[in-house]
């Protein structure tokens, strides 16, 4: 056990920590922009919309994140039309590919959470809203969403933690996130125990911070 390895290489770990935080928060935020509409539109009357969302959610929930990243990163390079288009500016960047994979993945899982909580809004509240003559849109953003998104908090905190841990695969496509940093350190010193232990501690700190923040939010928004 040689702790000097970790203290010597702390700038690399900090860089990795920053990359992980940046990557995960960005993809969670973008994922919400997919998840909330997708979750709501699950109960749409239009079969085509419902079908499209169903396919999206089943693909991204039905396959491992690693495979999704490989398809986006290595798979995209195979198509000449993509490589010659402006899109390649984005796809040639490992960071963009990881962000895309993580966003689409969390979008699908979170959409399922949103669909679940919307379905459990008490009938009485909906009837009362209707009795006030609210339009469907008004009902959605005044009653259904505030009510259900609050109740989604505990389930969503789990999703955030899964995303932090899932982001570890970014290290495979040359990104130096926490896991990537640990692999570089391991490769340099042949000390897997120290290298990965440091990474584990960083992930743990991140996860505990997330749990703490969600506790505060739940106290505030889920009082009753």
């Amino acid at each position: 056990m040689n702790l000097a390895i970790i203290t010597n290489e702390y700038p690399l770990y900090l860089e990795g920590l920053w990359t992980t935080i940046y990557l995960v928060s960005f993809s969670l935020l973008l994922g919400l922009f997919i998840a909330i509409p997708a979750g709501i539109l699950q109960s749409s009357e239009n079969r085509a919309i419902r079908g499209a969302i169903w396919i999206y959610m089943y693909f991204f929930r039905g396959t491992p994140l690693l495979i999704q990243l490989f398809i986006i990163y290595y798979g995209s390079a195979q198509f000449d039309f993509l490589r010659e288009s402006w899109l390649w500016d984005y796809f040639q960047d490992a960071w963009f590919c990881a962000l895309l994979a993580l966003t689409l993945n969390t979008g699908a899982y979170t959409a399922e959470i949103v669909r679940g909580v919307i379905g459990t809004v008490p009938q009485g509240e909906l009837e009362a809203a209707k009795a006030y003559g609210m339009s469907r849109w008004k009902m959605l953003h005044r009653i259904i969403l505030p009510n259900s998104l609050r109740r989604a908090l505990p389930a969503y905190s789990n999703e955030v933690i899964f995303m932090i841990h899932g982001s570890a695969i970014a290290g495979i496509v040359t990104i130096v996130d926490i896991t990537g940093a640990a692999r570089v350190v391991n490769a340099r010193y042949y000390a897997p125990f120290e290298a990965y232990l440091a990474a584990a501690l960083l992930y743990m700190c991140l996860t505990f911070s997330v749990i703490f923040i969600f506790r505060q939010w739940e106290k505030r928004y889920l009082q009753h």
Partner: protein
Amino acid sequence: MKKISLLIALLAFSFNAAQAKEWKDIRIGVEGAYPPFSKTEADGSVTGFDIDLANALCAEMKARCTYIKQDWDGIIPALLARKFDAVIATIDITEERLKMVAFTDKYQHIPARFVALKGSEYQASTAFMAGKKIGVQRATSMDLYISDNYPDAQIKRYGSADEAYLDLKAGRLDFILADSAAIAGGLLDKDGGDKFAFIGPKFTDPKWFGAGAGIATRKQNQDLVEQFNRAITAIRADGTYNKIQDKYFSFDVYGSEL
């Protein structure tokens, strides 16, 4: 008291005797993703120069060798963790690695070179290399060389050389620095390889690239090192080495003139 010290002396003696044994069963770690030295066939078996050479050495030593495939990243940790007894995977003998493991004499020595799209510009200056995307295999001599000499370049580290070739073909990299024979066998001589070419000088600076590639063992297995050394000398002398070399390369892999 006397008895105990006698016992200790006996134990120490038998321990030494066990250490100095002739190795009959050797587990060898190989990589399987570094053609033409080591590549994985469709059926999962590992073939290549390193494997043929290992077979010849084992035949010379009259030892039974089993091969264990291990990703490059973890190959030295796995050796230290006793997952196998020796590694034959084109490992350059460097100062840094000698702190952790023991090496046999070199069994091959090939310079490292840059490869890039044909017609690419190349300058060795740090100013030119700043911001360039350079691919290397993680934890290789080339990784260390780029990290030390071109810290301002965008260094992309890959688990295997094959992954780096994929990204060079995809236009995600400007250069790859790797073993020249590996680049020739793994990229240039394959489909689609004609778009790429070597560029710049041959790198052999022993500070980074060591004194050629050797077989790595744990430090306490000095007897195994000597056993391998005798076998290397023997197959160099009787022509077996050259026969294996000619199967894969058209030049002197042993690097006699380097």
